[in-house]
């Protein structure tokens, strides 16, 4: 789960992590009032769930409250395109007004899970503002790393090593040591999967603050963080994906025209892959889960058919413990209820597969049966190609 910058900073402040003073606004008037309170000279920042906002025109400096209001007026409702949003961009619905500070240094500080170590790892680099992936690619030695112990958490000497790696001295050094410890505590205690401060700001006055903040969270742990869950912004998510999640379906929309409905995440990915190998383009990833009941198949049909690009659908179910005839019955009844505007290729595996195929064939519905994944992929791709252009 992702949150906006202003929300990430709200969470971080609860852990004593210093951030610039700021206020989130939804109108130009609110922006003017906020800017006045913050001393006039402010930074106006578009709030969307994507990085690269600065380059896309979503972060601007205002010299006074009137300019802050004017910039906010322009920003609200605009579609911001960055390297992370894709060409369609994101609509700006909220703007964050933040006090402008005197920048001395811009650094990078991030924490995320290292899958190889099995522990959270702190990453620090002096190249603030740059993507850490880019730094890792060009000069991996420029990144200082500290693993966070699963029981003891971060130790003071590790925080000092980070401050040393930044080359900080005096007041800034001490404040940085404190910052690193508090940020790590926030990361662990909120079940975050990413806490990225880029840039980490050192001011001319020697203060250390989170100038930008990005936090992602472990979806599986959100049951114990109701306060974080409340920060979820559905405007930032694909409406079809949100709807699918209500049905317990794992759906991700893609750009192709071959819809797919599969049980199991690995098989669902493999189905997309084989559609591509057969010369088609998958329209989605969809895992209906282990059961693949008539109800789930029906919900999945509705979600897939909501995507107007879909010209044909491939159902690929490895029944396993579920009987093939039961799955076939489910597919038929769901198809009847939904009404199928496009051809559907069904590949079933499991016990009583032959009986299942018979049920599909006798249904009188536009259901095409297939033997194995390759046959299914070829049939669905050719069906999609034959479809009339809409």
């Amino acid at each position, binding site marked *: 789960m992702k949150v906006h910058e202003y929300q990430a900073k709200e969470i971080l402040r609860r852990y004593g992590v210093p951030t610039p003073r700021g206020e989130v606004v939804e109108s130009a008037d609110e922006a003017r009032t906020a800017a006045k309170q913050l001393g006039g000279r402010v930074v106006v920042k578009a709030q969307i769930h994507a990085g690269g906002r600065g380059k896309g025109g979503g972060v601007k400096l205002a010299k006074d409250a009137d300019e802050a209001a004017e910039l906010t007026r322009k920003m609200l409702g605009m579609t911001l395109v960055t390297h*992370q949003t894709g060409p369609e961009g994101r609509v700006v619905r909220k703007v964050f007004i933040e006090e402008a500070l005197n920048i001395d240094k811009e650094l990078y500080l991030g924490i995320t*899970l290292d*899958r*190889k170590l*099995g*522990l*959270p790892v702190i990453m620090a680099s002096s190249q603030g503002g740059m*993507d*850490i*992936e880019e730094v*890792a*690619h060009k000069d991996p030695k420029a990144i200082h790393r500290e693993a966070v112990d*699963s*029981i003891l958490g971060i130790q003071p000497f590790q925080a000092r090593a980070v401050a040393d790696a930044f080359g900080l001295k005096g007041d800034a050094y001490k404040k940085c040591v404190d910052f690193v410890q508090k940020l790590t505590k926030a990361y*662990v205690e909120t*079940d975050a*999967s990413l806490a990225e401060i880029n840039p980490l700001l050192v001011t001319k006055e020697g203060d250390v603050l989170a100038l930008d903040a990005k936090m992602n969270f*472990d*979806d*599986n*742990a959100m*049951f*114990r963080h109701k306060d974080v869950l409340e920060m979820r912004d559905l405007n930032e998510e694909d409406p079809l994906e949100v709807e699918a999640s209500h049905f317990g379906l*794992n759906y*991700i929309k*893609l750009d192709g025209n071959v819809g797919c409905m*599969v*049980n*199991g*995440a*690995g*098989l*669902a*990915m*493999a*189905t*997309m*892959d*084989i*559609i*591509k*190998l057969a010369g088609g383009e*998958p329209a989605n*990833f969809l*895992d209906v889960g*282990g059961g693949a009941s008539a109800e789930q198949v029906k919900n999945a049909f509705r979600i897939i058919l909501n995507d107007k690009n879909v010209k044909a659908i491939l159902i690929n179910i*490895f*029944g*396993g*413990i579920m009987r093939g005839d039961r799955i076939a019955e489910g597919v038929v009844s769901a198809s009847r209820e939904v009404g199928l505007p496009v051809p559907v290729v069904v590949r079933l*595996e*499991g*016990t009583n597969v032959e009986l299942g195929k018979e049920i599909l064939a006798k249904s009188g519905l536009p259901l095409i049966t297939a033997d*194995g*994944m*390759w046959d299914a*992929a070829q049939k669905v791709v050719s069906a999609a190609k034959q479809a009339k252009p809409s």
Partner: protein
Amino acid sequence: MAIWADKNTRVIVQGITGREGTFHAVQCREYGTKVVGGVTPGKGGTKHEGFDVFGSVREAREKAGANCSLIFVPPPFAADAIMESADAGIELIVCITEGIPVNDMIRAHDFLEKSNVRHVAEGRAASRLIGPNCPGIMTPGQAKIGIMPGHIHKPGPIGIVSRSGTLTYEAVGQLSRLNIGQSTAVGIGGDPLPGTNFVDCLAAFQADPLTEAIIMIGEIGGTAEEEGAAFVKKNVTKPVVAFIAGQTAPPGRRMGHAGAIISGGTGTAGEKMKALEAAGIHVVKAPSDMGQRLSEVWKRK
């Protein structure tokens, strides 16, 4: 022979009185697995579907001689169930549960490591965790410890290791249709921090005299496949066929499994396929080719 699970493995089911636990305990027993009971805290001393129910794993180990635990406990309590089994000295812990928080697993792994040091120091076997978020482990004709469909398997010489449940079934189905049996199929699970990884399984299959060839099924995210490839290059002499799911997956999106995500440009299928090929592994692009390709590179004895 096979790896880690055979007809002598004595299984208890943690969470046996739950819906999933009940259903699969019965399915495993019907397959012929020695299911010697189950554990549900507070319900010790009762019977459920003909199984003895114990109040703790320690009790199940002492009274029923269990050496393997199959876990169906809900996500918030699953890490605790894993640690309880490890503490009791259960040798094989198979966790089916999907959706365990990463922080819980970090602590469970730490606990497991420490309890293993203790067990080994005291002359007992160390615990192995398979999963979480996996279908389990299957030695055809001997033991089905998990949620996989038993009937598609047949005993034979091919070892399978996979991060995906249904893709394991796909590989098994393809092999069985070609009349090629399996020694053991291990689902290592789709989570970012699995207890058993590709390297563990590849080492065990290489050492197992009855395994003659291996299928490994990976997917996007992490570097476990690359580590497996490096291990194969150095240590594995048996032929290995591999498939990587997610060749068409968009970056930055979690593809169903918690661990299946391309982040910061790393963990792509292309990278993994390249590393596997460089290690002399036979990589297939289409998931439908796994069985066929294996039959070409493995010579029936």
